[in-house]
């Protein structure tokens, strides 16, 4: 804190030099409008970036980049920092040549251009997207040094598109026989995922918009599926096709991956819902408090089963809990930011958050998860996260139960 030190030093005398000597920007003319016709962050905002976790995957076109949750505010993820998960790399697809097809158990298999789709009745909704493998590295022991890597396969945006139900109706889907849909991407992996028809008709969106503009290429430009509450792999990017069928498809990413290893050696298949979870983002591991005194402990809570009902925070390793303030609006299958007042007296602290959703489900401890699912499960780790604050002010990642 050189700025802090400086401030303190000069405050002892006449005052802070940053006040007493007017800064240059107060005494000069600044830059014109539209200097950046498409604006970018400040030159002082170069540390919070999407980053990879070394060794997580062996090739970076079938890999992950993580959202820097440690320094974000509110619930909207800046689109430039939305996490990435590609299986065969990303492309910047020409929307004029992109086509979308619906086939299978429908009266009329149809082809739509982007022009067609964007003329249809659209909706915009704010939803979280979380990779099923978020926090996977921590099923066993503590493995990563910061919330970016432990929880950063998580983002939240306002998505705009046409409800899938509108398209299924438009093609005359078979209301009796239809039991599942298959969503298929136009990338090399031809990513495919099965979705139950009830879910498809409920709140799934064929989306082109993200945070007011077109999807970013890394997130599926010009078209992706939005499957609220369900793990990100089902939100098929570069969406080219929906097939209506009567049986699940057991695609690679629902028969070899995104299956949950149980202690008895079996795998749970078709586990898609992201259960209720929360994490304190500031302060969090890899951060240092400069000082004793007041802090706003803040974090995120979410549930694939609906709205967040309550978030409790403990600063004594789980012995006592206080309900945090939830920011409004609290939306279904959307991030909810929580805040709670706290004064650090300089002693060591273990802080945790625990979310409860509208179904009454309580975010579990890691040992409770393991008691049912063992330690090989990889996906769907929604355990309570513990951060240890040391007397030095340094926060680190620990498991507590």
């Amino acid at each position, binding site marked *: 804190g050189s700025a802090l030190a400086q401030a303190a030093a000069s405050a002892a005398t006449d005052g802070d030099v940053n006040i007493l000597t007017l800064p240059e920007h107060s005494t000069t003319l600044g830059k014109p409008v539209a200097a950046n016709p498409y604006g970018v962050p400040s030159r*002082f905002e170069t540390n919070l970036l999407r980053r990879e976790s070394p060794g997580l995957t062996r090739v970076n076109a079938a890999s992950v980049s993580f959202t820097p949750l440690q320094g974000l505010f509110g619930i909207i993820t800046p689109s430039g920092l939305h996490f990435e998960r590609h299986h065969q790399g990303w492309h910047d697809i020409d929307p004029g040549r992109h086509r979308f097809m619906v086939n299978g158990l429908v009266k009329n298999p149809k082809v*739509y251009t982007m022009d*067609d789709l964007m003329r249809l009745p659209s909706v915009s909704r704010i939803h979280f997207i979380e990779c099923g493998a978020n926090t996977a590295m921590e099923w066993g022991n503590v493995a990563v040094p*910061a919330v970016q890597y432990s929880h950063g396969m998580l983002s939240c945006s306002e998505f705009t598109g046409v409800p899938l139900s509108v398209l299924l109706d438009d093609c005359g889907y078979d209301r009796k026989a239809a039991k599942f849909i298959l969503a298929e991407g136009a990338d090399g992996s031809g990513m495919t995922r099965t979705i139950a028809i009830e879910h498809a008709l409920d709140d799934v969106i064929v989306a082109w918009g993200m945070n007011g503009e077109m999807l970013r290429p890394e997130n599926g430009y010009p078209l992706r599926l939005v499957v609220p*509450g369900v793990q990100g792999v089902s939100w098929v990017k570069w969406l080219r096709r929906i097939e209506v069928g009567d*049986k*699940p498809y057991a695609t690679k990413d629902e028969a070899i991956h995104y299956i949950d290893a149980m202690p008895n050696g079996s795998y749970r*298949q078709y586990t898609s819902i992201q259960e209720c979870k929360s994490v304190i983002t500031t302060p969090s591991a890899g*951060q240092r408090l400069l000082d004793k005194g007041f802090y706003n402990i803040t974090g995120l809570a979410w549930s694939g089963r609906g709205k967040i009902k309550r978030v409790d925070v403990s600063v004594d390793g789980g012995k006592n809990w206080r309900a945090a303030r939830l920011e409004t609006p609290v939306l279904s299958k959307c991030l909810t930011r929580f805040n709670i007042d706290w004064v650090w007296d300089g002693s060591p602290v273990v802080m945790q958050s625990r979310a409860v959703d509208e179904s009454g489900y309580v975010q579990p401890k890691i040992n409770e998860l393991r008691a049912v699912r063992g330690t090989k499960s990889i996906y769907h780790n929604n355990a309570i996260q513990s951060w240890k604050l040391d007397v030095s002010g340094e*926060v680190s990642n620990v498991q507590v139960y």
Partner: protein
Amino acid sequence: YPNIGRVATDKEVAAWDIDVRPDFKGLPKGSGSVTKGMEVWESKCASCHGTFGESNEVFTPIVGGTTKEDVKAGKVAALTDNKQPQRTTLMKVPTVSTLWDYINRAMPWTAPKSLTTEEVYAVTAYILNMAEVLPDDFVLSNENMAEVQKRMPNRNGMTTNHGMWALKGKADVQSVACMKDCKGETKIRSELPDSARNVHGDLSQQNRSFGPVRGVDTSKPPST
């Protein structure tokens, strides 16, 4: 919705509707031999996945960890005894359609959808041959896929008996939200290994230089 979209032609549907289901709906007619599959594998696959499908270079190994007993049982024993260091593709995959569909749509990685139908049959057969699921002289075809399915080492390895698929499914883990003087241990059971401290780079460069906190300089050891 007047004047929106148009009916797809048969050829268009055929061009894109390539998925193959566990019941083999979508599987095109054709066949391919293990022998031919070895050619395909060595020329188009082995550079990434290893000559025996064992490579860990670009992805987890495809072959390994399955036994003749597993083929009989339809359940891979190493998934329970955890003796295999890594879980290979064949240890996990329950359905042969999954392999066929995925290789057909996505492999080889840098040239997806470039294989002929015969090549896909053949290389699928060869992978299963490497795993000793199919004999050296086998010719895999749309006619005998259902038989091969009965030999998949982990075909009985899956369960859908859980609450994480249905919108109103019941959660398997039921915690309780205690608020005061909560019982039970609250011990630190695991901490970040020192070796992992700086693996993701210096965290002081991954946080703002102002605000409520700073990033820790992880190039140095912790101060306590």
